[in-house]
């Protein structure tokens, strides 16, 4: 579940701002967020993930008041409860596929790479058809394979909410449907919330709801 109320945010060095009166996504809802480049979609995802903090308002994600959490708890919440997928994959070149999938466990507080989580990483890789690439490095993979690695990493700890920032932006027509379907399948199976930022109108049919950011953000330049 995601809920925003009376959200306000602005960058220090910019006139741009976010003003969102209300947005609610149910726990099992799969929503596409559309809007022109630079309109603040990624900023909204960062607020939901607790990467940046709003100046005012309530941000409730997976039953947690994200903005009110202490820094350490917010990071812990991000690792354990959120699955983040990025347009440019955010993989580390010096880690192989297996280690990239397990990466959140290496940087999170109180987390460890257990045999069970290794098995889960391998199962995810198998399901996403990259099981034979586990010992390869990102440079040795195609764009589609890299995004599958990123999706595997996002789903490793069985998140309650998936925030995907243009996950298909760098993929070819075949792969973009494959990757999106993987996210949707997981969300359906796990009963997770899926919020996906996208520019690609071909994908919108797959979502239960489409939110236009231009209508969501009530701030207008003076």
């Amino acid at each position: 579940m995601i809920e925003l109320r009376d959200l306000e945010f602005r960058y220090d060095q910019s006139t741009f701002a976010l003003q969102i009166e209300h947005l609610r996504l149910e726990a099992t809802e799969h929503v596409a967020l559309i809007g022109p480049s630079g309109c603040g979609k990624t900023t909204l995802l960062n607020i939901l993930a607790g990467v940046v903090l709003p100046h005012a308002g309530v941000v409730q994600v997976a039953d947690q008041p994200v903005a009110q959490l202490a820094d350490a708890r917010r990071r812990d919440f991000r690792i354990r409860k959120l699955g983040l997928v990025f347009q440019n994959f955010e993989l580390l070149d010096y880690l192989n596929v297996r280690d990239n999938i397990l990466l959140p466990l290496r940087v999170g507080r109180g987390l460890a790479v257990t045999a069970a989580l290794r098995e889960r990483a391998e199962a995810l890789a198998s399901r996403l058809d990259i099981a034979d690439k586990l010992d390869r490095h990102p440079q040795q993979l195609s764009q589609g394979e890299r995004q599958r690695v990123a999706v595997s990493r996002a789903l490793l700890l069985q998140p309650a909410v998936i925030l995907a920032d243009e996950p298909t932006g760098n993929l070819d027509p075949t792969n973009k449907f494959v990757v999106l379907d993987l996210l949707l399948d997981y969300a359906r199976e796990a009963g997770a919330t899926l919020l996906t930022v996208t520019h690609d109108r071909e994908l919108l049919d797959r979502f239960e709801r489409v939110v236009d950011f231009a209508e969501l953000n009530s701030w207008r330049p003076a």
Partner: protein
Amino acid sequence: MSGVWYLAWRYLLWHRWKAAILVAAVSLVLYLPLGLQLLVEQTARDMNARADATPLVLGARGSPLELVLNALYFSDEQPPTLSYAVVAELRDSGLVDPVPLYVRYYSQQVPIVGTSLDYFGFRQLQLASGRQLATLGEAVLGYRAAADLGVGVGDFVVSSPQSVFDIAGVYPLKMPVVGILAASYSPDDEAIFVDLKTAWIIEGIGHGHQELTRPEAASAVLKTEDDRIVANASLLQYNEITAANIDSFHFHGNDAELPLTAVLPVPRSDKARVLIQGRYQQHESLQLLEPRAIIDQLLATVFAVQRYVLVAMGLVALATTAVVLLVFLLSWRARRPEQDTLHLLGGSQAAVLSLMLAEVIMVMVLSVLLATLLVVLTHWFGGPLLKAVVL
């Protein structure tokens, strides 16, 4: 391996050449001053021990350092020679027991030391196998020399000709190895010992050849004058001394004039030492030296140079440290996207800084380990290496 340590290790492995260069640079900065200090101290200790065990050295006037290095460490310096008559003169003085040395030739870089049996008693050298020198042409080897040449008792060593272009020169002498010395951890371990006369035969002062009165040598005879027979170069010369030909070996000229490179006079008492020093103090062609004094002079120069080198190394260490720091800082700046990724995934600032610190610590630990290994290797092999260079 957990968390950031694992990530740091993977990063260093992935950038292994960069990491290896950093480790090598830091290792050298750590090792060089330590290694140099160790090397110089170890060499000084070894050289002083040898010098302390040798009360006096007598040789022809010339460089005192060359004389001491040749007589004590069998260096390839070639001090001027003195005549064998000095040995009798010293013995007749009743003040010292003279030990003659003739160190001029080699067998594959291993010095051949011509001396008397007194040398083994003076240096307290024990046989590990075989027996002592008994007849002309035999050799006893230090244990390292035997190992380096790959020979044992019953094998042979051959003296190396001084110049391959000297076609009229001395033939190499093939010498049976009759004994191997136990390790003494001194230059004696790395030498071949022969009887003084054998050394002179290697020099060509003594030789053995076909009996000229026998019919098979007739073609080599040029002329016969009273008791002298003159032969040409086709005369068969022996390059090995055996029971069958040992009687044919002989020396031309006066025995008293045969050359030595040094004599080690072993004083019978402190008083005898002072007296013999006084006797040779003003000698016009000979010099009597106290090796410890000469080695102290040499080491004083070495220590002075070492101080300059250490200062230079200190400056290099500062520069290297600055460069290594710069490499880490630039690398860290270049890895900003990676840090952002870690933040996005939930890593704290502390975790990201720990990752950098873990990399620095790993490089430092590997450098310290490598430097320690180099110091240990220097301890084992550095002394002989430096002596090989210095001597």
